[in-house]
Each structure stands twice: as structure tokens, then as C-alpha cells.
């Protein structure tokens, strides 16, 4: 798992969960608070409405009691009870009287009954006026509801008193209209719904829900996951005893439903926004935290790929930990670099020793590698190559003939002319040298010199036959130095030629086998004795660094060969001397 991923997850996930949970809790609490508040308010309204209803009914009752004091009605009733001969007229009289009362009360039903609750006369409002009711069909409670001709009446009775004694009852009713209440109401008889104001609910649902409600008490029921408040409505009706129940049935959640929906939506939006913000913050902070590390990791990976251990510059914006880390890395890298350098150095020395050992195999070639190295460095300096290149040339030139280790002494030191097969063997030494060094880490940069110091400018060299600038400059430099040293050195079969002659041969070969620029640089080295000085300078240096091999080095190796007493050249070396017979 990546550091960034872990940082992100460990910062985002817990906070996201916390955020979601707290949002949910707050949302639930707000919604329930709102709902409870609205419920309370609806309930208060309901209670107030019910109270008002009761007050109205009480007022109506008082009004009825006043009307029951009507002396004309009392006289009429007296007449009805006592009259024997003209009973129809007597009943007409009373029916007429109660019709008048009913008219003035805007009632739909009015009746008088005697002290034993036996109906005496009853009138019902018809189209245009009041019509008498067949008394045999009238059985109505003192208070409550009464059905006649499929019409439901809501009735109230008051006693008609004479001297404090009830002589009759006056019953007044109006058509029951469930909508006349200020609130949603339901009327049930023996538990079955007769009338309801709400159309949203099925009668069965209402009946089932209200079955548990006590007749005269407040009641809260759940229908379809909504809370309903049901209050007894009207002060007299509950005691009707006729199986009728009139109650309010108000959905107390309906009022809060839109608000709840709004709240839910807003909380959802706010929650999502907060989560998104949280996500962005987490991502940004993760990036801020993980980026320096990722950068560092990237740099380290690049180092690992390149196999180098550069010094990382400390940047001002870096975190202290990162800086510490870098510092540590730089220290370690430095140590690694140093140790690697030491290793390389050691190896170079070792290989150098090998080269000198090689040189030492033949007394005549002793010091050759060292001299070539010095000449090459001198040329490189004249050509103003960078110090790193000069260093590379120095070591590379030192090793340039390392491949000769793999070539038999019989061939290498054969004083006679070489056969073509032997020539081929000799010519393999650059490739062998490359193969030896290629396996050693840190010597990669010398491979070109080792492999290509026998390539000719005109493409006639070996092993690859490269031309002109396809041949690395370092190899071209070493070639000139090598050729010069070969010409000026003594050989078992000849003396070394004088400096000037060698130089002229080199000049002749410029642009053909040699790089003209390098030859020119070498020639410039000669003017004013620079070469000499350089050789002297490096010679003394060599004496210090290559102490092991100095014992075997001849005193004249410093450069100016002594031409006089050398044996004549009897064979052609593989140095590509233009004058040689077997130039490759």
C-alpha cells in the first residue's frame, strides 16, 4: 500500500464515518424535534378546537333550555296531553309550534316527548318547510345521533320544566355534517365507520386503528406510519349510549411532512457537500504530506536505476524530516560514492598493476602503458577536455592494452615476423580487454578506449572498422599516443626512432589513420618542449604512484628515446605505424 493511500484512508475514512454518523444523529434529532413540536402544536390546536366545540355545544344547550321555557309551547303541550275531542288539531297545534321553533333555530329536526320519553310530536325539515314525522319510527336517544329517512341527525335534548318538574322534553337536531367541524372528524357506530372527513384513509383502517381508543379519552394511533390524534368531540355525544362515537382524527404528522422532506433533503445535500469537502481536504493534505516523500522516493528510484548516488540539494520548502532523511541519504550516498571510488581506484590500481605486469613481461614494452597514458593526458589537456575526461583518458590509456593478458607470450614476444594467424590473435586484444573490463562495475567508461584504440580515421582499423568521429575522441587520442610511443620505444628487434621522425610519420598519417586534430594537438605539445615537460612532470608523478613497477622501468621511458643504439626494426607491431610493413 502506498504511503499516500494509507495517509488518505487513515485521515478520510474515520472522519467521513464520524461526519456521516454525526450528521445522521443531528438530522434525526432535528427532524424528531420538529415533528414533536408540530405534533404538540397540532395537538394543542385540536384540543382548543374541541374545547371550542364543547363550548359551542354548551351554549347551544343553554339556548335550548331557554327555548324550553316557552310558555306557549308548554300551553300547547298541556293542550295536547289533555285534549280528548280534537286530537288532530291539538297535535297540529303542537307541530306548528315546534316547527316555528325549529325554523327560528334553523334546526332540521325538532321533537317534543312526554316525561316518559314517549314522542308527542316531531317535525323534520323538508323541501320548503317542516313535515311531521311518523312517531312510531322515532326511537332516539336523549342525546346523540338519530337516523331518519337515511339521514343522520345530530340531536340534543333539554327538559321542559314546570315548577321544577320535568313534564316533557324538547329535542332539537340538525343534519349531521361531518365537515362542519373545524377539524377532521369521524363518526362511528358500534365501531364501524359511518362518516369520515378524511378521504385518504380506508374505513377499515380507521375502524381498526380507533378500536383501541377509549370512548371518552384522548388517543393517539398510527395509521400507515403516520401518527394520528383522536379526541372525543362534543360533550354530550360520548354519553349517548347508542353506539355512536364522534371523534376527531387528525394526522399530526401531515403538517410536518413537507418540512421533514425539506429537512431530509437539506441534510442530505449538506452531508454530501461536507463529505466532498472532507474528501478534497483529505486528498490535498495527503498530497501535501506524501508528495515530498514521493519525490524523495522518485529520486531514490532514479538513483537506483542509474546506479549513481548523487548529492541531493536541500530545498528550502522541504520538511524537516524530509531534510533529515535527505541529509542522511546524502551522507550515505557520499560514503557509498567514496567507497565506490576507492573500490574503483583500487581496481584501477589493480588493473594498472596488471598492465604494468603485462608491460613487464617484455622488457622492451615496459612502461609503455604508463607513457601512453601520460601522452594522452597531455594531448587531452591541449585539446582542453574537461578534467573528468582527462581522468578517464588517464586510466583508460593505462588499461588500453590489458587485453594482451589473454594473448600467449609466444605470440606476443615472438621476435620473428608474425604469421597472419598470429596477427589475427594479436588483433583480438582490444576485444579481450573489453571483455575483461566489461564485467567490472565502475570501469564502463574505459571500455571505449580499450576496445577502439586501434580504429583508424579512414575506417581501416579494428575491431569494428569505425570511421572518423564514429570513433570516440578518447580512443583517437590514445591511438596517437600509442603509436608515438610504439615508434619511439626500443624493441628487441629495433631501436626507437627519434621524436621528430615519429612526429612526421604521425603528421603524414593525420587524416588517414590518425585524427588530424589529435595529431595537431600532439604536435603543438611538442613546440616549446611542452611534451617533454609534461612527460617529465608525469614521469615523476608516475614514480610515486607506480612505485611497484618503477624498478622494471628503464630510465629513458620519459619520452625522448635514444635513437642511436637500438636494434633495427624487425617486425611490425600492431600499432598501425604508417611505416610498418604489416599495417592493418
Amino acid at each position, binding site marked *: 500500500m502506498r504511503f499516500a493511500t494509507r495517509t488518505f484512508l487513515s485521515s478520510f475514512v474515520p472522519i467521513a464515518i464520524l461526519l456521516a454518523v454525526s450528521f445522521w444523529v443531528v438530522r434525526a434529532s432535528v427532524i424528531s424535534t420538529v415533528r414533536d413540536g408540530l405534533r404538540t402544536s397540532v395537538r394543542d390546536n385540536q384540543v382548543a378546537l374541541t374545547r371550542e366545540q364543547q363550548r359551542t355545544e354548551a351554549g347551544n344547550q343553554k339556548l335550548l333550555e331557554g327555548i324550553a321555557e*316557552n*310558555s*306557549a309551547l308548554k*300551553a*300547547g303541550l298541556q*293542550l295536547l296531553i289533555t*285534549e280528548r*275531542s*280534537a286530537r*288532530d*288539531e*291539538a297535535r*297540529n*297545534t303542537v*307541530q*306548528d*309550534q315546534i*316547527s*316555528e321553533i325549529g*325554523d*327560528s333555530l334553523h334546526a332540521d329536526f325538532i321533537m317534543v316527548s312526554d316525561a316518559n320519553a314517549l314522542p308527542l310530536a316531531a317535525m323534520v325539515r323538508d323541501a*320548503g*318547510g*317542516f*313535515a*311531521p314525522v311518523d312517531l312510531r319510527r322515532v326511537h332516539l336517544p336523549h342525546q346523540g345521533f338519530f337516523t331518519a329517512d337515511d339521514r343522520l341527525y345530530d340531536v340534543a335534548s333539554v327538559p321542559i320544566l314546570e315548577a321544577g318538574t320535568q313534564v316533557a322534553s324538547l329535542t332539537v337536531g340538525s343534519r349531521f355534517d361531518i365537515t362542519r367541524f373545524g377539524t377532521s372528524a369521524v363518526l362511528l357506530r358500534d365501531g364501524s365507520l359511518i362518516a369520515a372527513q378524511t378521504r385518504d384513509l380506508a374505513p377499515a383502517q380507521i375502524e381498526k386503528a380507533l378500536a383501541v381508543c377509549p370512548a371518552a379519552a384522548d388517543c393517539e394511533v398510527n395509521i400507515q406510519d403516520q401518527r394520528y390524534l383522536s379526541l372525543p368531540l362534543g360533550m354530550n355525544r360520548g354519553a349517548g349510549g347508542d353506539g355512536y362515537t364522534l371523534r376527531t382524527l387528525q394526522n399530526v404528522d401531515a403538517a410536518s411532512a413537507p418540512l421533514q422532506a425539506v429537512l431530509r433533503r437539506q441534510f442530505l445535500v449538506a452531508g454530501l457537500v461536507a463529505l466532498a469537502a472532507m474528501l478534497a481536504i483529505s486528498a490535498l493534505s495527503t498530497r501535501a504530506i506524501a508528495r515530498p516523500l514521493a519525490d524523495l522516493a522518485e529520486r531514490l528510484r532514479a538513483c537506483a536505476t542509474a546506479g549513481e548516488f548523487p548529492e541531493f540539494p536541500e530545498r528550502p520548502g522541504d520538511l524537516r524530516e524530509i531534510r533529515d532523511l535527505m541529509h542522511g541519504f546524502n551522507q550515505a550516498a557520499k560514503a557509498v560514492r567514496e567507497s565506490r571510488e576507492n573500490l574503483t581506484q583500487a581496481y584501477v590500481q589493480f588493473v594498472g598493476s596488471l598492465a604494468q605486469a603485462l608491460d613487464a613481461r617484455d622488457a622492451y614494452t615496459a612502461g609503455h602503458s604508463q607513457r601512453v597514458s601520460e601522452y594522452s593526458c597531455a594531448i587531452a589537456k591541449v585539446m582542453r577536455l574537461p578534467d573528468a575526461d582527462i581522468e578517464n583518458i588517464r586510466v583508460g590509456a593505462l588499461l588500453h592494452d590489458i587485453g594482451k593478458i589473454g594473448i600467449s607470450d609466444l605470440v606476443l614476444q615472438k621476435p620473428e615476423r608474425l604469421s597472419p594467424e598470429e596477427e589475427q590473435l594479436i588483433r583480438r586484444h582490444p576485444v579481450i580487454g573489453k571483455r575483461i573490463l566489461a564485467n567490472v562495475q565502475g570501469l564502463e567508461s574505459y571500455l571505449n578506449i580499450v576496445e577502439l584504440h586501434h580504429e583508424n580515421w579512414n575506417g581501416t582499423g579494428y575491431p569494428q572498422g569505425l570511421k572518423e568521429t564514429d570513433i570516440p575522441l578518447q580512443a583517437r587520442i590514445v591511438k596517437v599516443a600509442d603509436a608515438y610511443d610504439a615508434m619511439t620505444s626500443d624493441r628487441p628487434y629495433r631501436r626507437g626512432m627519434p621524436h621528430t621522425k615519429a612526429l612526421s610519420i604521425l603528421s603524414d598519417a593525420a587524416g588517414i589513420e590518425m585524427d588530424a586534430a589529435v595529431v595537431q594537438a600532439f604536435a603543438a605539445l611538442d613546440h616549446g618542449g611542452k611534451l617533454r615537460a609534461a612527460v617529465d612532470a608525469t614521469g615523476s608523478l608516475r614514480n610515486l604512484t607506480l612505485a611497484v613497477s618503477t624498478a622494471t622501468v628503464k630510465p629513458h621511458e620519459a619520452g625522448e628515446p635514444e635513437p642511436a643504439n637500438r636494434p633495427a626494426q624487425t617486425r611490425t607491431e600492431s600499432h598501425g605505424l604508417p611505416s610498418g610493413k604489416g599495417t592493418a
Partner: protein
Amino acid sequence: MWSKLVGSSLLGVALLAGADIRGTITIDRKLTHRNVTASAGIYQRGISVPLETEADDDPVAFERSHVAVYIEGNPSGSGGASQPLIPPAQPAIEQRDRRFFPDLIVIPAGSTVSFPNFDPIFHNVFSLSKAKSFDLGNYPKGQTRTVSFAAPGVIAVYCHLHSNMSATIMVTPNRWATRADVTGAFTLKDVPAGTYTVVAWHKAAGTFRRTITIGESGDAQLNFTLPFLEAFGTKPIAHR
């Protein structure tokens, strides 16, 4: 109708005739409020409505026709209050549609009034007035009762069973009494010469008195303007 009866009955005593008193009752405003209840059927009563919404006649005409005009006291040389020259024919106050009809009669003292019931329901006619109190009891359709009124005065007649039924009987001390017609015009015929106090009475407006002197010949003119009672308890101001 009643005044006509009175007038025709006076033809027999033309030798004693004096001048006529003619006049007009002016009432500029409605004085009473009435509701009418239309009959919807024999056993059904209709819905009561205020009169104005249905009646297209002049509401003040009703007021004018309910003013009784009579001469107070005993005119000299003529028949006294207790001894009317010619007893009038028996007037009747019928009960129809829960109302008394007519609801105002003006009769000289000594007259007898009958109260026939034409409604299909009982009525119980009574009066508690000082001049004459009576209670005729419950009686159904087709029956009637009679009452004699010996003393002059205002008799308010009611029904025990129907508190909104009301009629007034004005019993005058002499025969010079009448009801104004719907235009407010009235005539007191054959009044002997002399100085009299003429009274105009309206149930709501009250009693208004004016004095007039009648010569041997020539009719006299006497007009009344009945103001509305300004407020409850305010005594109406008589015009003199």
C-alpha cells in the same frame, strides 16, 4: 268597513247631525316591524321572512291604516259613551294563519266581539288589559267565542299558544270613532257643534290629542303627524 257600518247606522239620526271632521294622518316612517310567515300547506308552515323583502306595498300605509281616531269625552247633546245611540253590529276578529284578522278594531263601548277560529290548530285567545281581561280557553277550528266590552280603553288581545299573535281592540267612549285608511284619511261624521279633543292613537307611536271647535255648519279639517318614538321611554309629544 267598520266605519262604513257606523256611518250607515247614523243615517237614522240625521236630524241631529253636525259637521264632519275630516283629516289625514301623516306618518313618514315605519313604526313597527313585522314578519310574515307564508303558508306552505295546510299542515305546514313556511319559513318566516321579513316583510319588506316580499311586500311591495308602501310599508307606511300599514302604519297609517293602524291609527284609531276618536273624540274624547262625551260630545254635548248627543249619546253618551255608555249609551250608544245604536249598538253596532257584532264585529269579529278571526284567527287565520296564526294571525288575528283584523288586528285592530275600533268599537264603541258596549259592543260584543266574536273570535272565530278558522285555523286547523287550536288557539287560546286572551287579554290581560285593564279595560277588559278575559281568557277564552283552547278551542279548535270551527268554534268561536264572544266577548262584550263595556268600558272604553285599549284591549290587547293575545293567544296563549302563539305568542306572536296579537290584536288590539280600541273601545271608544262614543260612536265618533274610526280607523284611518291606507292613505291616512279619516272622517268623523256628524259631529255636533262644540269643542272637542280628538285623539289619534297608534300602537307604537302612542296617543296624540288635538282640540277642535266645530261650528253649526261646515266641515272641519284636522291633520295629525305622528312622529316616531325617539327612544324607548320617551313620551310622545301631543300636537295641540
